[in-house]
């Protein structure tokens, strides 16, 4: 220090100031990078944790939610909790796990009303429009309905029965004569409340609610569905519809569900309204083989 004496005090002070600032910037910067990277990881919400109704997209939610827990307090069914630091969810943010306690879909949505920041969007006033996630029948090997049993619990327990989940009838290929009642989730109706997942009687649910972006595919932007476009245009856009002519053995006719049967005139394979005979085969469902 004594050796530094000749230097101008102002210059020395400036030097000290710059050194101190650099030290601070480095130390605090390191801490910041640590927290920043942690924050980046914490943006990924585990699939089993669902946000309350009306929650903004996860990235926006983490900037809007102040972790006050008022949604937790105003939930009359106590399904919400705030994440603790050891859980793989952004610390302090609200979530629920459908398999433990699903959302009861209160009509007045008290959790959204309680939110002071709009992290739960106050524009959501109809709980039927909530998108907490999307139910997916993930395990088609163990789902009882897929095995041909009439479990139907997910369908019956769904608050939007026959809208969010419908039962689609199929032929049971195993027995060849029974029906399968396949639960089908409709993403435009499903709120992601998780009642189906909670209700599934298997030890591990065959139907689960996932974050919508995980559960849903997306068609190419340029994709057009021919039949939709045809309906819109009021007729075929490519070539005139033609009716397929089957070359059936003589004296046989084709009957839906039975195949070739002896008899006279074949029933019209193509619905009458269609255009001229041509090459488009219409194969009945049962002949397409396997499951649909």
């Amino acid at each position, binding site marked *: 220090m004594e050796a530094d004496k000749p230097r101008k005090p102002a210059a020395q002070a400036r030097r000290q100031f710059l050194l101190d600032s650099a030290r601070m910037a480095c*130390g605090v910067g390191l801490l910041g990078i640590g*927290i920043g990277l942690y924050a980046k990881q914490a943006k990924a919400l585990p699939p089993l944790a669902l946000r309350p109704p009306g929650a903004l997209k996860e*990235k926006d939610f983490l*900037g809007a939610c*102040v972790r006050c827990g008022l949604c937790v307090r105003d939930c009359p069914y106590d399904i919400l909790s*705030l994440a603790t630091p050891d*859980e793989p969810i952004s610390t302090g943010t609200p979530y629920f796990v459908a398999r433990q306690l699903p959302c009861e879909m209160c009509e007045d949505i008290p959790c959204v009303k309680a*939110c002071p920041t709009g992290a739960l969007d106050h524009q959501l006033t109809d709980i039927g429009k909530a998108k907490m996630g999307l139910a997916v029948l993930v395990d088609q090997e163990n789902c009882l309905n897929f095995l041909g049993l009439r479990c139907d619990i997910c369908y019956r327990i769904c608050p939007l029965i026959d809208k969010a989940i419908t039962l689609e009838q199929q032929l049971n290929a195993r027995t060849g004569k029974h029906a399968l009642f396949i639960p089908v989730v409709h993403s435009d109706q499903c709120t992601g409340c998780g009642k189906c997942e909670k209700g599934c009687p298997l030890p591990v649910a065959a139907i689960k609610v996932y974050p919508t972006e995980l559960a849903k595919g997306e068609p190419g932007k340029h994709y057009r569905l021919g039949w939709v476009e045809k309906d819109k245009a009021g007729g075929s856009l490519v070539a005139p519809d033609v009716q397929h002519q089957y070359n059936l053995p003589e004296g046989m006719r084709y009957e839906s569900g039975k195949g070739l049967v002896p008899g006279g005139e074949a029933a019209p394979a193509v619905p009458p309204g269609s255009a001229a005979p041509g090459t488009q085969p219409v194969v009945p469902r049962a002949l397409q083989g396997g499951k649909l």
Partner: protein
Amino acid sequence: MSTGVEAVAAKGWLGAHKWLLLRRASQLGILALFLLGPLAGVWIVKGNLTFSYTLNFLPLTDPYILLQSLLTRHLPETKAFVGAAIVLAFYLLVGGRVFCSWVCPVNMVTDAAGWLRERLGIKGGAHISRRTRYWILAMTLVLALATGTIAWELANPVSMFHRGLIFGMGAGWAVILALFLFELFVSNDGWCGRLCPVGAFYSLLGKFSFVRVTAAKRAACNDCMDCFVVCPEPQVIRPALKGVDGAGPVILAANCTNCGRCIDVCSKEVFAFGTRFGNKVAKVSQPAGEMTPAACK
């Protein structure tokens, strides 16, 4: 060596611990109000220190977290802004860092560590500049801007502790234990006095706040140094007490937490609560002499 012995002899134990007891009552009382709901089902206050709703009527928002939220480019509901305005007005009145010494639950943890540190005779430790907190404050704001999330809330022990006590702690205990051990072994006043950006934020309000501690009877000071020992921010005392560069007796330094320990520990009753405007009068009349104490609250 024992701090405050003179004060106890002069004013009695109760007189020498008045503000400390009031402060603990405030800290525990506020915590009790928050806990009354979840533990006893009496819902006077809902939420936690980041946002609370009292009697379904009074919103209170932590302006620091609201600022971070705004920096993530989210516009909160009006209720959050009203709550922040009330909190800002309150701390501008009673002193910015009153939050630290009268409300924040972490203060009890770090005070406990400080008490044990003294009992065990642990001296020294890492040197961390008291300006570090402002760097960390800036860093948390930059993080909010850069990540688009309130990233600091992932690590903030203040909200983590308070929220944990009310909503469930989980591994939060490990963080609080680490904080306690850090205070005990690594750095005295390390968290509250050097690192905490929440305190740093509130100290910015302290620059303008109305209620201040004043060394009104500084002429009576007998240089026992007890106030410097008990003060969590001892650098704030000297200018006011010693009239450095003609400074008035009011402690105007932003980092004074208005904890009142200096008032308790002074056997000569040099200190008292007053207002920041008690200072101007002093400057005009006499730079460093006997003067009438400013109006107390």
